[in-house]
C-alpha cells in the first residue's frame, strides 16, 4: 500500500491530461452552444473553424520563428494567436454574409441550417488541407515542461514522477481567463446583455430595438475567437492535423448537449464531464491500483475498461444516456 504514489500516478495520468483536454473541449463546446443559443442550429463546421484558426496561427508562428521572434519560455504560437483569431473572424463573417444570412432571411428550418453548415464544413476542410496539407504539423516551441517527471522524483523521493507540460499549464490558464472574460462580457456589457436577451426571446428582443444582425455578427466574432483559441491549444497540446479536428466534433457536441445546448455554464461542465469520462475509462488502472491496494489484491491485467481506440464511443455513450433520460441536458438547455 502506498497511497501517496498512487495519488501522484493518478494526477500524472488522469487529472492533468483530463483537465487540459476538458478545458479544450469546454472552449469548443462554448462556441457550439453560443451558435445554438443565438442562431439556433448545431454548427457542424465548428471543428473546421477551429482547424482554420489554428492553421492561420501556425502559419504566423512559422513566420515569427523565421524572423527570430519568440515569447521566451512560452510557445511563439501565443504571439500569433491574435492573428489567427482575426483570420477566423474574417472567414466566419464571410461565410455568414454569403451563406447563412440568406437562410436567416428565409427563416429556413434548423435542419436546413445544419445541412448548410455541413457544406461549409467541407469547404473549410478543403481550404485547410489545400493550404497546409493533410499531414501532422508541430509548432510548439519554448520550454516543454513546467515540472519534469525526473525533477519531481528527486524533489519528493517518490517512485512515481509527475510531469506537467507547459502546454497543459497554458491550456488551463488560458481557458480560465477566456471563460472569465466571456462571462463578464455576457453579463455586464450592453452587447452581451443584448445577446442574452436575443437568445432568450427573439421577438421580445426585436421589439426592444435590438438589431439582430449586430447580435449575430458579435456572436460569430466571439465564436471564431473561442474556436481559434481551442484549436490552437489542442494543437499545441497534441499536434495539428486537419482530420483530428473533424473527429473532435463528436466530443464537442456531446459536451454541449450533456451540459444543455444553449447554456454556457453547461458547456463548460459538459466539457469536463466528457473529458474525464474519456480519460478514466480508457486509462489502464493497473499502476494506481497496485499502489493503493494490498499486495494480495493487486491486479494482474491492465484494468483498462475500454481500449483508447474507443474514446469516441465514451462520449457517444454519455450523449445517448443524456438524450434518453434528460434531453435538455444537466443544466437545462433550451433544446428538446
Amino acid at each position, binding site marked *: 500500500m502506498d497511497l501517496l504514489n498512487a495519488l501522484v500516478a493518478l494526477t500524472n495520468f488522469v487529472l492533468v491530461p483530463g483537465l487540459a483536454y476538458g478545458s479544450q473541449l469546454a472552449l469548443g463546446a462554448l462556441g457550439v452552444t453560443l451558435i445554438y443559443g443565438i442562431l439556433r442550429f448545431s454548427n457542424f463546421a465548428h471543428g473546421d473553424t477551429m482547424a482554420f484558426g489554428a492553421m492561420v496561427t501556425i502559419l504566423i508562428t512559422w513566420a515569427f520563428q523565421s524572423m527570430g521572434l519568440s515569447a521566451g519560455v512560452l510557445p511563439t504560437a501565443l504571439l500569433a494567436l491574435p492573428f489567427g483569431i482575426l483570420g477566423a473572424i474574417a472567414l466566419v463573417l464571410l461565410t455568414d454574409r454569403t451563406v447563412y444570412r440568406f437562410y436567416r432571411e428565409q427563416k429556413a428550418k434548423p435542419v436546413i441550417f445544419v445541412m448548410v453548415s455541413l*457544406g461549409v464544413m467541407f469547404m473549410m476542410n478543403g481550404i485547410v488541407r489545400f493550404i497546409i496539407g493533410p499531414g501532422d504539423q508541430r509548432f510548439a516551441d519554448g520550454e516543454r515542461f513546467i515540472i519534469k517527471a525526473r525533477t519531481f522524483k528527486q524533489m519528493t523521493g517518490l517512485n512515481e514522477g509527475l510531469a506537467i507540460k507547459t502546454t497543459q499549464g497554458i491550456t488551463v490558464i488560458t481557458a480560465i481567463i477566456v471563460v472569465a472574460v466571456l462571462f463578464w462580457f455576457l453579463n455586464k456589457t450592453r452587447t452581451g446583455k443584448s445577446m442574452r436577451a436575443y437568445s432568450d426571446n427573439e421577438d421580445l428582443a426585436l421589439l426592444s430595438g435590438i438589431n439582430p444582425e449586430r447580435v449575430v455578427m458579435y456572436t460569430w466574432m466571439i465564436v471564431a475567437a473561442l474556436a481559434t483559441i481551442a484549436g490552437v491549444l489542442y494543437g499545441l497540446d497534441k499536434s495539428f492535423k486537419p482530420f483530428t479536428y473533424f473527429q473532435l466534433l463528436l466530443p464537442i457536441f456531446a459536451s454541449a448537449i450533456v451540459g444543455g445546448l444553449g447554456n454556457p455554464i453547461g458547456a463548460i461542465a459538459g466539457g469536463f464531464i466528457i473529458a474525464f469520462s474519456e480519460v478514466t475509462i480508457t486509462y489502464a488502472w493497473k499502476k494506481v491500483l497496485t499502489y493503493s491496494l494490498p499486495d494480495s489484491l493487486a491486479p494482474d491485467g491492465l484494468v483498462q475498461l475500454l481500449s483508447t481506440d474507443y474514446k469516441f464511443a465514451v462520449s457517444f455513450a454519455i450523449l445517448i444516456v443524456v438524450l434518453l433520460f434528460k434531453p435538455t441536458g444537466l443544466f437545462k438547455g433550451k433544446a428538446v
Partner: protein
Amino acid sequence: MTETMKHTLLFVFVGVMILAEGATDFLFFSGSWNSALVILNMGLISAIMAIGVNIQWGFAGLFNVGIMGFTALGGLAVVLVSTPVIPAAWSSGGVSIVMALVMGALTVVSAVMVTKFLPAGKLRTAVLLAVLIVGFFVYRAIFDPAVGSVEAINPALQGNIGGLGLPVLLAWPAGGLLAAGAAWLIGKTALGLRSDYLAIATLGIAEIIIAVLKNEDWLSRGVKNVVGLPRPMAYEIDLQADPAFIERAAAFGLDGVEASTLYVKIIYALMFTVVLLALLWMAQMALKSPWGRMMRAIRDNETAAEAMGKDVTRRHLQIFVLGSAICGIAGAMMTTLDSQMTPGTYNPLRFTFLIWVMVIVGGSGNNFGAVLGGMLIWFFWIKVEPMGILLMELVTAGMAEGSALKAHLLESASHMRLFTMGLILLLVLRFSPRGLIPEK
C-alpha cells in the same frame, strides 16, 4: 420541351458520358471499357444508396449523417455470411464470444427493466449501477479470453470467427438487416427530439461502427482486412481457361483476358441493375401509396399530422430504419463487388457526404432524381481529379519549372474534391434547392 423530355435527356446524358468513357480517350475520358464499367457499377450502387437517403430525407425530412456506418455494416454482413466456416474458431472461443455478447445484451435489457419497473430513488440508482457493473465484468471475463483464443488461430489468414459459408447473395439482405438493427437503436433514442440530435447521433454511430470494425480483429480481422471474398459468379482465371468462352470472345473480336474482365463486370452491372430497379419500383409504390402521402404530410407539417392522429415519432423511426436498410444492402453489394472488406477505407467524405450531394443535386423527394444524382455525381467524383489536375497544370503552366508554389499547387489538386463537393452542395441548396428532377 416537356418535363419528362428534360428528365429523360438528363439520363441520356449520363449514359452518353459513360459510353464516351469507354469509347474515346478525348480530354479526361480514358477510352477503356473496363473503366467505363467500373464507373457504371459503382454508379448503380451509389444510386441505391441515394434512394435510401432520399427515402429518409425526401419523404420524411430526416437528416442522417451516418450513411458510412450503415454501408460498413453491409460490408460486415458479407464477411459474416459468405466466408467459409472456421470450425477451430467456433470450438475454441466462438461460442463464448456469442455468449458474452448475449450477456452484454442481457445486461442492457435488465438495466432498462430496472429503470422501467422500479420507482425512482436511491434504490433504483443503486440496483441500476450494480446491474451495469456486474454485467460489464461478467461480459469482459467471458469475452476477453475467448477473443484471445480466436485471434490466435492462424492469424496470418484468419484469426476471426469466420462466416457461415452461405452464398454471397444472401449477404445483401443480411446487410440490410444489420443496418436496420443499428438504425433502430439510434432512431429509438434520437428521434422525437430536435432534428439536430438525429444528425449528431448518426454522426457518432458511424464513427463508432468504423472504430469497432477497425479494432475488433475477431470479427472481421480489423485493419488486416478480409480479402478474396466469395463471388456470385465465375472468376476471370477460370473463364480464360475455358475454351468455349475464348471462342465466343473471339467472335466479338476480343482476346480472352479482356473479354473475361468485361464479362464479370457486365454480369455485376446486370445484377445491380435488377436490385436498383426493384428498389426503385418499391420506393415509387411507397411514395404513391397512402403511406407515402402520410409521410410527406408529416414532413411538411408535423403539428398538423399529429393533430390528425399520426404517430410522428413511430413513422419517423419506421422510415429511418427502411432507408438505412437500403444503405446496408448497397454497402453489402459494394463489398461483394470489391471482394474485400477494408475498414480503413471508409471515410465520411466518400460514404456520407458524397451521397448527400447526390440526393440534393438529383432532386430530394424524387426517386428518379436520386438515381440520376447517384450516377451523375459518381461520374464527376471519379473525373474531378483528372479535371482538377488538368486545371492546375493550366494554371501553373506559366510558372517557373521547379518552383515551390507550383509543386504545392499540383500536389494539392486532390484536396480540391472536398472543396468542390462542398461548393456544389451550397450552390444547389441556395439556387436550385429542388434539384435536377424536382419532387412532383
